């Protein structure tokens, strides 16, 4: 007689396989994030100082939605994969019509009293679409570039639309997620090499003949923000001072001078880590980076134990989302990467961003909880072979 646990494994009953490690890691990050936001915005103007409360609301909403996403078997998402993707693209198109223009780019759609950023949710839709494509693809060995045209088109459409907004950071994240998923597949080495070579040739040609001067200028400023000392270079400089001032143990909660005296720009959106580093020092940062690493490595583990390709790509996709966000944000704040507007998952304030991450973690949980499900085909195969 099968035990109850075996039954759960077989039928994919989720509740007995709850992934506590994932849950606790994400919860820890969310709590630290809110506490840090409190410190970051405690001295700001009235409009900002309530942001941490809003963040709690978003986290609660995200948690509920994430739980819903986790409970429904992910195979249902597979069927809806392209539909969801289509909805995402339609919303991206709507941005151009309804979008609110802020600082020269329109990323928001206003619904009632609050706006949301379709590009954030598009990240998840892209993951699902890519997962479905690879899941349905009969080919499993030695993919050539031709075999990646489908996924490439899937990634290119939203990337292009987001670049048009323009939102360089989000577009970059989409491309990197696509690249990560591609590397998951077995591409032929020759294909990879030829891709790299083609890129190497195309870049100088594009630079010399296609790009206009002002476009080149923009790219140069983007690559070398220090040159633009009054703009983003100023941000990067002060972020570094704040982090460095933290030392080993930090100046203490809400005592970081650079934040308290407003030297940190965008302390709630792009630079909350600088506030954290100043308050808690190297040791605090170590804990935080460890939490992010654990989350990413755990996502890879979930992918590795997933029972099918859809689940595996889903897990890797969400893992890549978290990884690239965290890596780019930390790299930018510590000054090893150029300043690109990329948020730090669960740390940066923002409804759309929090919801996306929470839903992503719901997806991870979903895959994780159903990892013990044994394919009936394989079981029957085993049985028949005996």
């Amino acid at each position, binding site marked *: 007689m099968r035990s109850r646990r075996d039954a759960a494994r077989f039928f994919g009953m989720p509740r007995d396989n709850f992934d506590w490690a994932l849950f606790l890691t994400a919860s820890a990050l969310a709590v630290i994030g809110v506490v840090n936001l409190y410190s970051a915005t405690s001295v700001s103007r009235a*409009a900002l100082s309530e942001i941490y409360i809003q963040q709690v609301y978003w986290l609660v909403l995200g948690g509920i939605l994430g739980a819903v996403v986790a409970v429904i078997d992910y195979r249902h998402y597979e069927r809806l994969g392209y539909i969801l993707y289509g909805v995402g693209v339609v919303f991206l198109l709507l941005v151009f019509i309804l979008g609110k223009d802020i600082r020269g780019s329109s990323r928001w759609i206003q619904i009632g009293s609050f706006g949301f950023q379709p590009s954030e949710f598009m990240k998840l839709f892209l993951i699902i679409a890519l997962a479905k494509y690879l899941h349905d693809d009969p080919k499993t060995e030695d993919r050539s570039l031709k075999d990646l045209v489908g996924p490439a088109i899937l990634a290119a459409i939203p990337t292009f639309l987001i670049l048009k907004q323009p939102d360089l950071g989000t577009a970059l994240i989409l491309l990197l997620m696509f690249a990560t998923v591609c590397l998951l597949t077995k591409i032929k080495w020759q294909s990879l090499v030829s891709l790299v070579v083609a890129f190497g040739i195309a870049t100088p040609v594009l630079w010399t003949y296609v790009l206009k001067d002002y476009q080149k200028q923009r790219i140069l400023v983007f690559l070398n923000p220090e040159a633009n000392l009054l703009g983003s270079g100023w941000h990067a400089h002060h972020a570094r*001072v704040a982090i*460095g001032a933290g030392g080993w143990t930090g100046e203490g909660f809400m005592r970081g001078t650079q934040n308290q005296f407003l030297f940190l720009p965008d302390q709630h959106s792009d630079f909350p880590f600088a506030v954290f580093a100043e308050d808690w020092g190297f040791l605090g940062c170590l804990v935080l980076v460890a939490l992010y690493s654990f989350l*990413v490595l755990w996502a890879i583990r979930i992918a590795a134990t997933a029972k099918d*390709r859809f689940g595996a790509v889903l897990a890797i996709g969400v893992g890549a989302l978290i990884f690239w966000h965290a890596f780019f944000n930390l790299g930018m704040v*510590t000054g090893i990467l150029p300043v690109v507007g990329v948020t730090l998952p669960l740390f940066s304030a923002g409804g759309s961003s929090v919801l996306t991450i929470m839903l992503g973690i719901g997806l991870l949980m979903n895959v994780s909880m159903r990892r013990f499900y044994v394919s*009936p085909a394989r079981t029957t195969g085993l049985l028949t072979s005996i």
Partner: protein
Amino acid sequence: VSNLLVPRSDVSEFRKRYRWMALVAFLAFAAIVVRLFQLQVVKGAEYAAQAHENVIRRVTIPTTRGIIRDAQGKILASSRPSFNVLVVPGRVMPSARPQKPGRRQEEADSWERIAATLRLNPDERARFSARIKDACVTDEDRSPCWHPIVVREDLARDIVAELKQHAQEMQGAEVVSQPVRYYPYKNLGVHMLGYTAEIDADTLARYRPKGWESMTAEERQKQNPLGYEPGDVIGATGVERAWESYLRGQRGWEKRVVDARGRYRTGPEADRLLDEGGAEAHARQEPLSGRDLRLTVDIELEQAIERAMRPYQAGSAVVVDVRTGRLLALYSKPDYDPNDLAGGAGHDRIRETFNKLYTDPLRPMLDKTVSGAFQPGSTFKPFSALAALEDKVVDPSEHERCDGFLSYGRRIFHCTHVHGKVNMHDAIAQSCNIYFFKIAPLVTMDRIARIATEFGLGQKTGIGVNPESPGRIPTRSWYALRYKGAFQIGFTLNTSIGQGATTVTPLQLALAYGAIANGGTVYSPQIVRAVETSDGNVVQDFPPRVRQKARVNPQNLAYVNDALYGVVNEQKGTAFPVREASLEIAGKTGTAQTGYVNVNNDDPKRAWYLARDHAWFASYWPAKSPEIAVVVLVEHGGSGPTIAAPIAIQIIREYHRIETTRIAKSQPKGKDANKDAPTPKAAAAAVKADADGGAPATPPDLGPLPPDPLALPPDLGPDPPTPPEER
């Protein structure tokens, strides 16, 4: 359910990749940790210091400029607060800022209310509204949206009160007080006193040359010992400029906690940071306030001169104490109000005033007592006479005949009228040109030049205030150079009566007449009597300085003195008709031709004015034991005896009245310190002096302005640095 049981996809394709991905992710995060280690641990101290520097800054503490007082302790220049209104664009007009989703309207616009309170006219209102909207195109932390802009300068106190009272409804408006130089006597004595102005770019560049940013503290101290910074106030002319280093004072500094927007922070957090900084953070340099100056000038006398000169457009007057060289009054007309230029009334007023001053043909900016050189006319005759007496080339008792004209070669030289037979005494008293023309060829130009030089003419007096003109005492060689050797005897003739190339400044002439009066001692003119600290202690007292002793025979000097006495007191003297019997004045009138020829097709009215003679009167009083020398010049005033002499006499009368009143007031105090009111006798004396003077009496202790809280009542003022001159 059935499709859930069909074979799912095979995951074996991905198996080998996971390990690589995990490795890459791990290495990436490790790189972040290494970078954090480098920032926080390796360079942590460095960044901590920088963070500290960002937050704790050296903030300068302003100093106050010294006060300038007149000889009696009346304040001539001090500082008063000026209230300026600044508004922060993003706060007075939140509606102009870009709207973000999710942000509700925080506050209503307060700008309209503020504009109404400040009584801005529609034009200004539109201008500032446009500026505010421009500033608020973006509202990031460092956008101009958060930089205050000045809307009104030097507000009236009732508007300030209104602003403060309704501060709740005027979000974003701030009243800041800024010291502004204040001259209570306005136009009076503006040329010698000068005014202050914001330091201009050229001057600042001299104090802060290229490479200033990279200089060490010592080099900076050497280049810029007074520590000028952009926007500082500096003395522009007069005493304000010449004594700048005394008046300015020195800034102090202290460490303050400052946020990124430059605002000071106080409270426990700030105190904690300062405490952590230790002794260095609590270091503080107290500001040194500027030194006060006590001038030799008497503003009451200055007022009297202003009254006497009122009917005339342009001119100047100098009153000097012949026993010390101290200047009792320096007056130059036309003048201007230094308050307009000192910035209290706003920048628009400064621009407007400058435009007006620089287009005025009467040149109000020029201090004519020091910088203006004029032909002295007949006031120069005593020096020609002395030159003749010194070398005994002429016997003064010998008579020459004056027919009213004299032809010399092809030219005819004129006299004022026919004097008949005159000796030297009569020639001076009646101002006969012909006499001097006749003796001039014997005396020669160089002898006259020597005597004039002995009395300090033709040289800078060294007053040290305002750019000084040396004037000119021509010599034969000067003419030889100028006219390429073609020397004519006519030059000498002109020189002997103070015409031609001879020019003097009124100050030079006053000092020279002072020397005639006091027996030949030429003093250095003195305008600042003492330097005092702000609580009235004398830091430095300046005794009179003798510049030179005129080497002349006392008998000859006595002869000239007698002749000058005759000018006013003899029946035939030129100033006799306007003399005042009660005052024994000695002096010399002068009517100097200007040599104006209308070559530029000037406006006829202007040409008429410019062609008129300068009216001079140079004098001293009392004639027997002289105290003061008075020189009056009315530019293009006409005749010296009828125009200038009455003014000088009125000045002397006023001086006499002021002195008498003061003595009368000070005497009862000496007997009984409790009695502040003058005794009946002294009061009677004062009244009598007033009656004698006949001039409109001003209350001696009340300035023309509401009492300044800083002003010391004259009776309670600090003790004069030196015992007062003999009364």
